[in-house]
């Protein structure tokens, strides 16, 4: 199970409480609001692995 797809973080509400921190992730141009609660180190431009609207991992850039 676990359809998880990687997309680019394009914006964040920079909420001080991680519980409410969300941002838009772009999947080849398709935007979806995603919770950033589990990826506190995520920066704009990072590739995030997203499952049911929650980012689970900041992906390392391909070498």
């Amino acid at each position, binding site marked *: 199970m676990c359809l998880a*797809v990687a997309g680019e973080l394009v914006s964040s509400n920079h909420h001080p409480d991680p519980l409410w921190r969300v941002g838009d992730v772009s999947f080849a*141009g398709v*935007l979806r609001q995603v919770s950033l609660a589990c990826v506190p180190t995520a920066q704009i431009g990072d590739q995030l692995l997203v*499952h049911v609207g929650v980012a689970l991992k900041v992906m390392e850039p391909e070498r």
Partner: protein
Amino acid sequence: MQPPDGRIQMGHGGGGRLMRELITELVVPKLGHQKNVLHDAALVYTPGPQLAFSTDSYVVRPLFFPGGDIGRLAVYGSVNDLAMAGARPLALSLSLIIEEGLEIDCLARVIDSVGEACQGIGVGVITGDTKVVEQGKGDGLFINSTAIGVVEHPLNISPSAIRPGDAVIVSGDLGRHGLAVLSARAELGLRSPIESDLGCLLEPVMELLAAGVELHCLRDLTRGGLASASDEIARSGQCTLQLEQQRIPVHPSVNAACEVLGLDPLAMANEGRMLVICPAEQEDLALTVLQRYQPEAARVGTVGQRWADGSSLDARYPVSLISELGVNCPMVLAEGEQIPRIC
């Protein structure tokens, strides 16, 4: 075919197997034997030129979506159906079922759209009907449109004309309409700049005919996408179809949205794309014409062999997908409407 609770489900309109069964098992048998009744346009035999006749109902939600609206859809949808027989439209009818409470301004915009679409094609709405139903009994507006056209070529363009070895071509990239509507509905929170591919197929079809392409079959891709259309054609034409996964053009955004939601791009809806089946030798000619309208038009497969035995594996799963690794996998039509999944 009986659903466990004996009621119509959304899936019966989803373009998948449930809809096919509803039509072939419940509707068609009661209507008397009609040749080609399941093809897009029916031919009416007259002493003069051959007439083509098609009807369609439009229930899209929301009424206005990126790239189009129900009015333009009602015109193009029915004209496209005629075009799938290679017919030029002569006239349209328009029936409106309006839900009580719809803003008049909204209706006006829809009718404007109908008018513009007609003008662009050079066809008129010559008759129609209007009904109003109580609030709650309709999604704002339902439209039925019927089109009459004339066939001015000698070809028999229908699934029965497909031949083993024929090229299977799509006229452009798939799934844009499905994605546009999904994102306009907002229930899944996806926002996409992709507009519907809603478009009129009349010109490309006329050009294919003028260029001398021996069209065997045309089918506009609507609900159920390429999956549904290729399945229908294969079954009607009693030939297998092999589609090559890698050659099927899909916009990266459509692919991405499908990955996120667990949907199949091949089953996503289109409203301005068609399957063209023609002799393999004319593939390049056909693509030259089609690529002027949509650069992503591409050959996606080949017609396989005709089957004799209706209970054979070929007859049960006539369409197969060749994976990127070259493995031939039978395509099984989805139950009904596609539903997003996590699993």
